[in-house]
Each structure stands twice: as structure tokens, then as C-alpha cells.
């Protein structure tokens, strides 16, 4: 009698404790962003400024350095030349850079790209569909996708040269 009552009480308290613990975890600790490390990267297709179609899935087997940016975001502007400097070197090693502009006028983006002489693929996310699919809110946000199409890391905020290099290293195929 006394024993069964204790079991009863323990189980009721345990159920309550687990439910509350999960709620608190989910509210205060858990990462609830759409794109997070460990998830498969959502496939998307965009036309780059050259008019080439870029579809993520076609880059299986390569690492993809996916950067969301805008010309009105100073840290984005700052990291562009760094990415440009490292682009060719890592392309050879199987890492592609893709910079997705968050729906600015083509003219603005073109002038910006010409001014900085950027050569890596840049696309404009008209209608913000890709940004929405990746749940992008602060700029810049960089998403590192490995050769299996899995997100390795999500980085928000500007990057130093060292960081860009480190990130590119992270998604080199075969590492």
C-alpha cells in the first residue's frame, strides 16, 4: 500500500518534471533556428549574375560556402574581398563559394560587384525564398555545407580572414 503510493507519486512527479524540463530546455537552451549544424542543407536553385543556374544539389561531393549578404551591411562588404582572395585557391580543392544577396536591385549589386572585382558566383535571392528557407535574419550569415550536403556550421556576423580560411578548410572534401 505504502509502496504503491510511493511509486504512484514518483511517477506523477517524474512526468511533471520531464515535461517542465523539456519546456525549459526548448525555450531557453535549444537552438530553434531553421538551419543548424547537423541538418541536411535544403536544396535550392538560383541564377547567378552571369545568368548561370546554380543548384545546390549539383555540388554534392564539393563543400559549399554559402554566404548571405547585402551591400548595406558593412561587415558583409568587409569580408567580400577576403572571400575573393581565397576563392580560386579553394575552388581547386573542391570548395565552392556562393554569395546570396538578399534581394537588392540588380543595378546596386552589379555596381558593387564590379567595384570590388568579385569573381565567385553571386546570386540575387528575388522574393527572399532561399533566405526564408534558411531562416536568415541577421546579415551576414554564412552556412558551411560539406560534400554530403550536411550543414557543418552556421556562422552569423562578420568573419576575419583567419575565420574564412578556417571555415573553408572545414568543408574541404575528404577531410
Amino acid at each position: 500500500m505504502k509502496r504503491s503510493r510511493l511509486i504512484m507519486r514518483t511517477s506523477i512527479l517524474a512526468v511533471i518534471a520531464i515535461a517542465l524540463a523539456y519546456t525549459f530546455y526548448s525555450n531557453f537552451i535549444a537552438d530553434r533556428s531553421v538551419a543548424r549544424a547537423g541538418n541536411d542543407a535544403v536544396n535550392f536553385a538560383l541564377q547567378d549574375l552571369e545568368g548561370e543556374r546554380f543548384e545546390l544539389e549539383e555540388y554534392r561531393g564539393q563543400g559549399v560556402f554559402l554566404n548571405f549578404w547585402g551591400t548595406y551591411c558593412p561587415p558583409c562588404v568587409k569580408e567580400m574581398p577576403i572571400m575573393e582572395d581565397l576563392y580560386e585557391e579553394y575552388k581547386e580543392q573542391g570548395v565552392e563559394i556562393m554569395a546570396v544577396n538578399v534581394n537588392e536591385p540588380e543595378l546596386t549589386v552589379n555596381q558593387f560587384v564590379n567595384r570590388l572585382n568579385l569573381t565567385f558566383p553571386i546570386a540575387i535571392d528575388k522574393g527572399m525564398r532561399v533566405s526564408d528557407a534558411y531562416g536568415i535574419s541577421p546579415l551576414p550569415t554564412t552556412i558551411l555545407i560539406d560534400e554530403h550536403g550536411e550543414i557543418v556550421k552556421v556562422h552569423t556576423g562578420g568573419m576575419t580572414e583567419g575565420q574564412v580560411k578556417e571555415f573553408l578548410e572545414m568543408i574541404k572534401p575528404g577531410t
Partner: protein
Amino acid sequence: MKKVTCECGHKNPHGTEICESCGKPIEENLEQKKLLDMRYEGVARRSQTYTTTIIDKIWMFFSSVKVGIWLIVLTLLASALGTLFPQEMYIPPTANPSIYYAEEYGYLGEIYYLLGLHNLYSSWWYMLLVAGLGVSLIIASLDRVVPLHRALKTQRVTRHTNFMKRQRVFGTSSISQEEVDSTFSKVRERLEANKYKISEENGNFVAEKGRFARWGPYVNHIGLILFLIGCMLRYFPGMYIDEHVWIREGDQVVVPGTDGQYYIANDRFLLEFYDENDEIFGEAIERSGSPVVKNFQTDARLYERTDADTVGDLGELVEVAEHPIRVNFPMSHDGFNFYQLDYKLNELKTMSFTLENKETGDTFGRMDIDLYDPEPSYDLGDGHEVIIRDYFPDYFLNNDDVPSTRSKIPDNPVFIFEMITPETPEGEVSFVGIRQNLEPLGENDYKMTFVDVETNNVTALGVRKDRTLPILIAGGVIFMIGLIQGSYWAHRRIWVQRISGDVWIAGHTNKNWLTLRKDIDEAIKETNLKSPLDQVEEKEKEVEVPNQTNKNED
């Protein structure tokens, strides 16, 4: 656990105060007190009896009404504290809270911010308080409802004299033996007419009414628990979507939170005001000094993407809903609700210029620049061409004195034009913004003259999906049912017994004693029974009498 056997033979659980069956007070010390404590029928609350393990101690803690009241009071105080200054969500969205509170409310505001009270209702400790309330609701109810139910079920008609004597409403009458039977049946009839349920045993009877009111508190607690569970589920992934989206007139955007499944278009945004000369409202509008808004409305169209194509590829869109969204009249589709939340009037859309010869004043052509997608160059005919060298939708000079844009919204558009004419084939550069026309590379022969501007309105819609609503609604309904059940009915019992030749009447109710006595008086009308007295009131009178005489003396 040891059972306590009453002299009537009923075995009561340990901790019982009043025998569940006959009502005889059990504990020795209870004998001393004048009136019985009838709360929960004097049953053994489950928690009171075993307190050996830590589990039992936690259980006992949450089972206590006192703890429950403390939790209510603490929640109350904490909630009130949060309204001292506005919460973070109600301060201007551009304000930096770390500065805002100190600036706006001084020293106290700074402390308020530092203590995190600007986000009080989502703080861990506030949530913990509410969670504590929830746990207390569950355990305190469980602990009481089961034994109470058993006690009410096992109660016997004939009660111990000690039980009768120590009821709050109690009285005895001596009537002749011949009368007793007829009196009893008369009283019974009257009570039955008053919707009392009668149970009889050995010539004694108990009349009972509204027992279901006793379950009211537990029913409303179940409702509250359900409601709290609903609120808790909100934090589980996929249960709740809360997004918002800005849409320009004529534009179509993906609905956030739908994985690109839905697109929403804004055909028109409407802002209407009340007529200042309105016969009924004119006076009030005049006093307020500014126009009063009558309507915010977005004529929206919802599209669904049919072929599950790759994100970014548009695929085919099918219109699934069309609705004028107004405040208080959201659009619903597939569990998603779209609310009119905010708006921005007259956002720049296109700007029109013409090329003008400064000397002669002759103008050449007209160019309409779509501020969201300007062309690289505009041919104005006859060898006149304007190239846009650069465009800043929301111009400002950054810290390095370089022209930049603050955002992609054309709130302050600035262009750097290159003007090519037959006379100036190598091109002249001008810097043109709103009420600005500079010539950074020296004096020009031509200038860009502003002709026209077109604006449109932008609407902000809220996108919500809330799967917890059915649970919340069920919780609310059950809560109200329980509350009404417990508040608008009272559980009344009247015991009428023959004891040593006299007729004893005792009454108990969980509230509204005056009504209980009225019921008894009504039942014994036209009999020789004496109306029982309210022993609490009698005692009060005893205390009052000396007081009153004192007062009269001075």
C-alpha cells in the same frame, strides 16, 4: 498503514479527523473544540500521512493550500512588478534597451533593466513560478478529490451525537411522540419539494442538495491545468508559428514559416479616416485634434505552390484564397491566420526625371526609375542617354565618408548619373537625391530634373499558426464549467434524527449559511420543531453584548 476503527465499526484511514461513516470525531484533541472542522469532510488528506521520503516531502509541499496561496500571491506580485515600466516588446523597436530604460526612467529604470525585469514574463523564474502553480494545482487537487469522494460516498445517514451537536447549525426540539412521525414526513415532503434528496435509515434521515458543487473546484483546476499544458506545448517545435511579413502593393512574397509553400500578394492597402464633419462623431474628432482611423485593410491574395520544386525556382502558383484583411477580421487558410498588424504609407516606388539643358532650359525625354529595380541606362532619344553609375536606396555617408546605403528600402534614394548628350559625349556626372543635385566633378551643362514620383503603401501582416488553440479552448471551457459549478451551487446537508426522545436537527453547507437556515425554517414551518441556531452567530452575540453595554456607557 494503520487503520482507525470507529465505534460504529467503520475503518478509517490514518489521519482521519471525522469518521467517514457516522461522523464521530476521532482524534482525542478534537473533542475539546466546540465546532467540527468540516473542511474536506475531515478526511485524511493523502499527503499528511506519509512523509518519510524526499518524494513524499515534495508531494506534501505542493499539496498544501498554504503553499498554493503563496504561489498565487508571488505570481501576483511579480506580474504587477512587470508593469512598473513597459516591457521590452513595448518600447520603440529602434531603441536600445540598455540605454532606453536609464534615459527614460532614470535610476530606477536602470535597475529595472539590470534585473532583467524588462523581460519579466519570459524570464526563467517567472515561468518557474507559473510552473509551480501548475504542479500545486495538480497535486493539491489529486490529494483532496479522491478521499473526499470516498468520504461523501461512505457517509451514513445516522450520525453520532457528537457530530450532530458540533455542527454549526444545530438545534433540538422536544415534541410529543405521536407527532414525531407526521412531523418527519411533513419535513421530508417540504425538503423534497425544495429539491433535496432524502436518504433514510432507522427512522432518521438526511436531506442533501448540490453535492456536485463540491467537485467544482477540481473541475476548474483540471481546466486550468489543461490550459497551462496548452501554454507549455507552445514551446514544442511545430506547435506555434509566429511570423510577420511586409508586402508592397502589387507585390507577392513567400509566407515565412510555411517552407515556401504559400505566397501572399498585396493587391491594395487601404487606410480610411472618419469624416471630420460626421454628425455623431464630429465633436469628438474635433477635440482629439487629429483624424481618427476608421479602417486598415489589405486586399490579400494567397497562393500555394503546387509542384514541390526546388526552393528558389518559382514553380506554379495557384490562388487558394482572397480576402480583405482588416483589424479584427483576419484571413484564415489551412490553419494559418493572417492579421493586419502594421503599415507604411507612401513608400517611394518610382522616380521620374528628365534631362535638362541648364542654359536653354530644353528638356529631353523622360525616364521612370523603378526604385526596386533600376535599369543600368536609359535612352532618352536623339543621342541623349543617362547611365546610372550607382544607386543607393537609403543613402547616407558612412564613417569613412563613403556613400552607402542603410538598407534596401528606398527611403532616401540617391543616384549617381552619367549624362551623355551629343554635346557632351564623354559624359557629365551628377549626384541626385531628394532635393539634392550636386555636381561632384565640376560644372555641368546638363542636369537631371525631377519630374514626378510615384509611391505605394506597404502592409505588414502577421502570420500565425497555433496548434495549441484547441487545448486552450478546452481548458478554458472546463475551467468555466468548474468555476460556475463550484460558485453558483452550494452543497447542503440537513440531518434530522430522533435521539433520546427528542428531534435533533443539524445542518452543514460549504457556503451560504443564511440560505441553509432559510431552507430549514421553510421545511419545519407549521410543525412544532424549533428552528436550529447558528452556533457561530450565537457566540458572536455573546461577545457583542458586553461590548455594546460599554459603548452605551460612554
